[in-house]
Structures are given as C-alpha cells and as structure tokens.
C-alpha cells in the first residue's frame, strides 16, 4: 500500500473514530464528574441521545439572523472534522501536499473559532455578543502560547509537521521527559483548555451570564444548528486531547501501515483520549473558574513557559 492511499485510509479511520469517540468522551467526562460529586449522572451515552434529539427538532431562528446562523455551525463542524483528518491521532502518515503542519492546523482550528464567534454575534442579543467578545479575546491571547509551545516541540524534530514530531518522540523517548518538553506540554495544555472552553478559563456547565463564554454564543441556536455547534466543540476537544496524548505517550500510533497496526492504533488512541478525558474531569473537580480579567495573567504565564521552552531548546540543546 503506498503512502497516499494509506494516508487516506488513516484519515478516514480517524474521522469515523472521532465522530464516534467525541460524544462518548463528553459522556465520560460528565459522568466521572457526576460520580465524584456524588450525583448519579446521566450515563456516558447521554451526549449521543442529546444529539439525536436536537437533530430531530425544528430549529428556531430570529427574524434578523442571517445565513451565518446556518453556515456557522457547519463551518465549525467541518473545521473540527478537518482537525481529525490532519492531526496525527491514529497514525503519523500525512498527506504529501497537505501535511499535518502546525500552522495549518491552528488556522483550521481558527476557522471554527471565527464561525462560533460570528454565530454568537448573529443573534443580535447582548448575550451572544458578550460571549463572542470574550471568546475572541481569549482566542487572541491564547494564540502565542499555542504556536510557541508547538514550536518548542518542533525544534528537536526540525520541522513543524506534527506527525514527524510525534514520530521523533516515538524514536527517542528521552525527549518526552526533557525539561523543555515538560514546559512546553504544560503551556500547550493551558492553551488547549482555553481553546476548548474548559476550566479554569470557562465553566462548561454553567449558564450564568457573568461567567459563561462558550455557552453564551450558542444561546440563540437550536435544533440542528445547536447540534452542529455541540458536535464541533466536542470533536475539537477530542482531537486536541488526542494530540496531547500522542505527544506524551506516542506509543501505539501507526507509522508503517498494516491492518494490525491500524487496529492497535485505533484502540490505543481511544484509550488514551478517554483516559485523558477522565484525568481532565478529575482535574476540573479541583479547579474553580478564574475571573475573566485574570485569564490574561494565566495565559501570560503559559506564554512565558512556552517561550522559555523554545529558547531553552535552542540554547541548551
């Protein structure tokens, strides 16, 4: 099997797997949290049920809303799906012409960010605008951290292609526990928490106007519009957790295409993502949301870590 067709197969597998995995991941996260908090919880399949319900409802749209309310959610889903295609999750065999380049991936992710922000504005209400504004502020401030932390990962590999970075770490595991890598990983994790609207930047479980970011933007969406928004966000979280897990524990990813390898890859990434989801959920128990205007401090801290990681990897290595 040549590289191109194996890349296509892996991409296909990744998309299908993550479309299945993402709602499950959300279910797991919520259930773990409920369990720890002593609640019964709604079970790990609840997100699936929510989706089915939403898709079967008539969407309600404001009279002044434009095509953006219809297109935006789709754009978000597509951008998240593209992340699943491009990121090295199951395997590290990229497309020749469009490799899993760090900057391309960030930009694809930004398509979703923009789509969500515009949907928030399109409703023409105070809440939507507020969420959109906060969302974009955080997105703007998080970008340096995001790019620099992955830049730090890219230096030992000599390329910004994520699949190569993962492969490099697979071949020389000592890189994983190097101080540079740890710094960068912490920074990247904070950035991803911010991007996916998790604690401590945003509280995914609240609808309290003073605190919410992400939820405020989806208030005006309903029916399938809301469904796409939810799926898009879940997919993004799952894919990014998959990336982090592969950076920390690169074992199991497919580097040379084979049926067995593919199976191992699927199982390992699913396990890694779900385990990371559990860890995330447990971690969030101990965190409170920080005030909106303290978020920049947090992000500045993470930026400093990422910058240290980059310069250190130049000057120390």
């Amino acid at each position, binding site marked *: 099997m040549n590289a191109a067709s194996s890349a296509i197969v892996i991409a296909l597998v990744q998309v299908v797997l993550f479309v299945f995995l993402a709602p499950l991941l959300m279910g797991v996260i919520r259930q773990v949290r409920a369990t720890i908090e002593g609640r019964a919880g709604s079970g790990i399949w609840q997100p699936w049920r929510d989706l089915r319900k939403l*898709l079967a409802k*008539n*969407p*309600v*749209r404001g*009279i002044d*809303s*434009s*095509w953006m309310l219809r297109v935006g959610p*789709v754009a978000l889903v*597509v951008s998240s*799906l*593209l992340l699943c295609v*491009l990121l090295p999750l199951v395997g590290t065999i990229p497309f*020749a*012409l*469009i490799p899993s*380049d760090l*900057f391309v991936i960030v930009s*694809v992710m*930004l398509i979703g*960010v923009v789509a969500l*922000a*515009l949907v928030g*504005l*399109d*409703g*023409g*209400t*105070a*809440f*939507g*605008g*507020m969420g*959109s*504004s*906060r969302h*974009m*502020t955080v*997105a*703007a*401030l998080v*970008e*340096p951290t*995001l*790019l*620099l932390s992955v*830049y730090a990962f890219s*230096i030992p590999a*000599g*390329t910004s292609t994520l699949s190569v970075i993962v492969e490099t770490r697979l071949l020389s595991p000592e890189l994983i526990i190097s101080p540079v890598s740890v710094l960068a990983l912490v920074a990247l994790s904070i950035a991803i928490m911010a991007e996916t609207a998790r604690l401590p930047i945003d509280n995914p479980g609240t609808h309290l106007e003073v605190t919410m970011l992400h939820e405020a933007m989806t208030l*005006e969406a309903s*029916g*399938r519009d809301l469904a*796409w928004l939810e799926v898009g966000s879940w997919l993004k979280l799952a894919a990014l957790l998959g990336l982090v897990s592969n950076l920390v524990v690169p074992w199991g990813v497919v580097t040379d295409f084979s049926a067995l390898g593919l199976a191992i890859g699927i199982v390992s990434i699913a396990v890694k993502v779900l385990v990371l989801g559990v860890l995330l959920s447990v971690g969030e128990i101990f965190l409170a949301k920080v005030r909106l*205007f303290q978020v920049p401090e947090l992000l500045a801290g993470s*930026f400093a870590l990422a910058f240290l990681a*980059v*310069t250190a990897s130049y*000057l120390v290595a």
Partner: protein
Amino acid sequence: MTGIGAGLLLQLGLGALAVVTALVAAPSLRSRAGGILSTLIAVTGFVTGLAALLGATGGLLIPIALPMDPLLLAPDRLGGLFMLIVSGVGILVSLYSMSSTRGPDASRTAWVAMPVFLVGMQLVPAATDSVSFLLAWEIMTLGSTVLLLADHASRATVASAGIWYSAMSQLSFFFILAGFAVLAAVSGGTSFANLQAIEPGSWAANVAFVLFLLGFGGKAELVPLHVWVPRVLPEAPSHVSAAMSGAMVKIGVYGGLLVCVRLLPDGPVWWGIAIMLVGGASALYGILQASVSSDLKVLLAYSTTENMGLVFLGLGASMLLRGYDATAAADAALVAALLLAVSHAAFKSTLFLGAGAVIHATGERNLDRLGGLGVRMPVTAAAFGVASLGAAAIPVTSGFVAEWMLLQSLIHGGRLDGAVVSVAASVAMPLAVAVIALTAGLALLTFVKAYGIAFLARPRSTAAANAREVPALMRISLALGALAVLALGLLPGPVAALVATTVSPDPTAAVQSVGLGGVSLPGIGAVLDPIMLVVLSALVAIPVLVAIIVSARRHPHRTVDLPWGGGGSRARPRMQYTATSYAEPLVRVFDDVLKPSRDVQVTHVAESRYLVERVRVEQSLSDVIETRLYRPVLNLFQRYGLVVRHVANGSIHRYLSYSFVALLIVLIVVSL
C-alpha cells in the same frame, strides 16, 4: 523605443489626457470619463508591470536641465512586481470610483489629482535613479494630498488630516532625500547602479540605512511614524483610502526592499534586527489599536500599520538570517514578506472599498451605529467577508499563505543543519513568532468584530436599517477584489514562484509550485496546497450536508419575530453588543498600553443618594504615541513660535544691532 518604454509613455500620455478631461468635462460626465481613463492608466501599468516582472527590459528617459545622472524609468523585475500591485489596486479603485464618487469627491480637483496620483505611484517602482525616484515619489504625495482634501468643505477634520499628512509625508521625503544624498556623496552619482557600489558596512551605508528606514517606514505606516494613518485614511474618500492603503503604502515597502535588497544588500546583522524591531512593534501596536477601534475606517487604517509591520518583520528576519547564511529561510522570509504585500494590496483595498460601500449606503462609518447589513447588501457583505478572512489570515485566503510562509521561515531560521545559528537569531525568531501569533489572534478578533458588528445581527440605527446595495460598478470591483483574495490564496504556488524571481538569484531553490497550485519551500521542507485543503473540507462536509438536507426535509425551520435573548422579550437593537463593548475586555487587558481615559458620571435619584437614576460612562481612546510623543514636541514648537516673535519686534535699532554685531563678528574673524 521598447515595449516598457512605450507603456510608460502611454501612461504619462493617458495621465495628461485624464487631467485635461477632468478640467473640461461636464460635471455629469466627469466621473465616468475620469474613471475610464484612470482604469486605462491602471491597465497600462498592469501590462507594463507584468512585462517587467516577466523579465522584459527597456525604459523611458526623462530630459532634465540640471547636470545629473540621466533620469531613467526602467523597472526591473521587483519594480515590475510593485507596478503590478499598484496598478491592480488602481484598476479596482478606478472602476469603483466611476460610480462611487459624488459631490466633492467628484470635483474637478479630485479628478485631476486621481490620474496624477495613479501615475506617480506607478513611476516610483520604475525609477532607476534617485532623482526620478524622488520625482515620482513627490508626484504621488502631491496627488494623494489633493485627493485627501477633496471633501474639505464638509468636515473640519479633513484640514487637520491634510496638515498631518503633508508634514509626515515631507518628513519621509526628507529622510529619503538625505539617504540618497549620503549614498550619492560617497558613490559620486545618483543612479542606482552607482549607489550599488557602496560598501555595505561603511559608515555612509549605515547612516543611509537609518535614514531610509525612517523615510520608507513613515510611508509604510510603521510605528512611530504612523500618526498620520488614523487621521488620513478615514478622512479621505474611500476609494482614495483604498488606493493609499492598498497601493501607496506598498511603495514604502518597495523602498524598503530597494534599500535592503537592491542598493545595500548584505548589510550588517543589526540592520535586520532594527527592521524586525520596528516591524514587530508596528504589527502589535497597529493591531491593538485596530482591535479597540469602533470606527470602521480607523480600524482598517490601523490594521494597515499591522500588516506593514509584518511585512517589515519578514524583511528584517530575512536580512538577519542572510547575515548568518541561513539562505533558504532567508529567501522564504523575503518571499513571504512580498506575498504579504501582494495579498495585503488585494484584501485591504477590498476592505476599504467595502467600507466605502457601507458609507455610500448608510453615511455611517461608526460601527456602533451599523448592523444587519449582511442581508441588505449581500455582495458587499460577501466581498468584505472574504477580505476580512484574508486580513485575519484564515485559510484559504492570500493572507493565510503569506503568514504561513513567514512562520515557516522563522521557525526554520533558528537552526542551520541542526546547529544553532546564533544567539541573536534564536532569541529573535521565537519573539517574532510570538509577535506574529499575538498579532494574528488580535487580527482575528478585529475582523470578527468589524464584520460581525457591521454586517450581522440587527441594525443599530435607522440609516443602517434603510441601507440598500450599492451600484453595479462598485459591486463589480468589490467582487473582483474578493476574487483576487481567494485566487491568491488558492494558487499561491505560481504566485510565489513568480514573486521569488524578483528577489532571489536562484528562485527555484527558494520556492516551487507543487500540486494544484500549492507552494513548496524546498530549502525548508515545508509544503502547503490550499486546494487540497479545500478538497478535504469538501469531502468531510459532504456527510454533514447530507445530514442537514435530510434533517431539513423532515424538520423545516421556524422563524420567530425576536431572538430569544436569554428569555427577555423586549430585546431591542440598542441592547446588542456594540463594537465598543466588543473590545471592552481587550481595553482592560491592555490598559497600560492603550491608556484609555474614562469618565463615569452617576446621577442619583433626588430622594435618595443610594439610588441611582442614571450612569453615564464615557471612554475615549487616543493614539498613545501621538499624545505622548508628538503632542509635547508640537506644543514646544508652538510656545517657541510665540517667544521668538520678539526677534522681529519692529525696533529698527534692534535690527541695526543685528547687522552691527554681524559686521563686528566678520571683522574679528577676518583679523584672526
């Protein structure tokens, strides 16, 4: 006479014809005739520039009565590229202006200045000697100044914008003149061929470099010489703003390239660092000011500062890297800077034209009073949207490709063959990446705000509610601009390969075209094919679309009168988020840099001072650099101007004393 020479001569002839036409044409025909002739000028420039870019040679000699090196207009490839950029914008602007100009914007003066401005801009990159460069430069400045003042009678702010623009332009001009003079003094001639003979590290070269950086930096709107930008671009008629920001500013970039690539190549490393510093500061400052601005055109103006900052950041990085022999990364950075300039020309002129369309339809440029224009002006909204994506560097637009290439060159610049290039580079590169990242993030916010507030949601004023789509020619040129943004973004390979021929001796080593118009950087090993990205998106979108179609057939959507608004039933348009409130978190975060002045007035209810009747909050943002740097200096000058009047107080005895003292001094000096 060669083809290029004929093209240039034809431009001059058309320019003269356009001037005469503007003078004699009836007011009703003036815009039509002027627009057609301007378009012809731009098309001629486009063809000439393209020929020069593809390697054609030839030129036009200007006679001059003073003993100087001959004044020769003969664009090289780089000059051709910039002629192409300028004339491309010129075509859009000319088409647009045919139906956009009304009232004072269509005055005789304005239509005389338009061809002068266009021709002046075209000739700058064609010059091959300093005097003709300065000549064309000043013609450009003169034309743009007159155009800026077109609307002087209706707004008082135009006059002050005119003063600022003239003074800052003259400042730039003098810096450039001084730079050329320093070089000419050492090399003994004014032609670029003579100037190239300067030794790069010499004292004169260093002085000239600083002068040029200040001069061209001023024209390219770099901090701290950008102060004219937020005054001038908003006050000029929109098609003029588009031409200024899309084309004229590029002439500043051309100047930078002329100095750093053509005249004084292989400069010392600190040149690169200096340019990077200036560029980085401009990028951050520009986008920060843009992101908190509520005036659509001010926002676009500051965003121009940001983009030019990125271009110079790329140029500086390329010089720094070349200094350390990281040739592949240096070439990539330079090509990226050029691509950014090209794409900025496309998206920024479209944005300004879009802003012009908004003003044409509503008479408003305050975002806080716009809204809901997307459904009322679909073509404008679409074009503005595409251009906004370009400005925010979102795939698959031209801005994205350029920024991607810049980032690639930066992260690969720190190392050469696995070894650290230098401490300077390994600190500069991550910082540059961080600056670009923060800039890109804020640009995203800025343009989400601009587009979202202006075109989405509900109209915030009756003017916005009554807006109608603009006339056909304006729509056509907007659509052309948007198409250019997309085309440059989808086919970056051929474009980048062509651009690379202007600056690199071995263009194929730097950039190649791969796949379906994709671009590859062989020296770095990075590759990007936007069309593939589009194809992949289409593939993953198919199942989603199928699901939508199925769902929509079973469950059609229901429209209600009002948005839900969190449960409130009286959600009026006034209650929407505005541009000002959108940027509020950012203003708080960057409080120390922006220094907003806030004024809160609380009116208490008469019966009890614990109850508040109303609260009035005023917040104003000014350009910190202007208020902290320029204002004190200007005030000092004003005070000096008052005090110094005593020198000429009318006393003839005092005047005679001046002469007497001069005589005594001369006598003493003579007898020494």
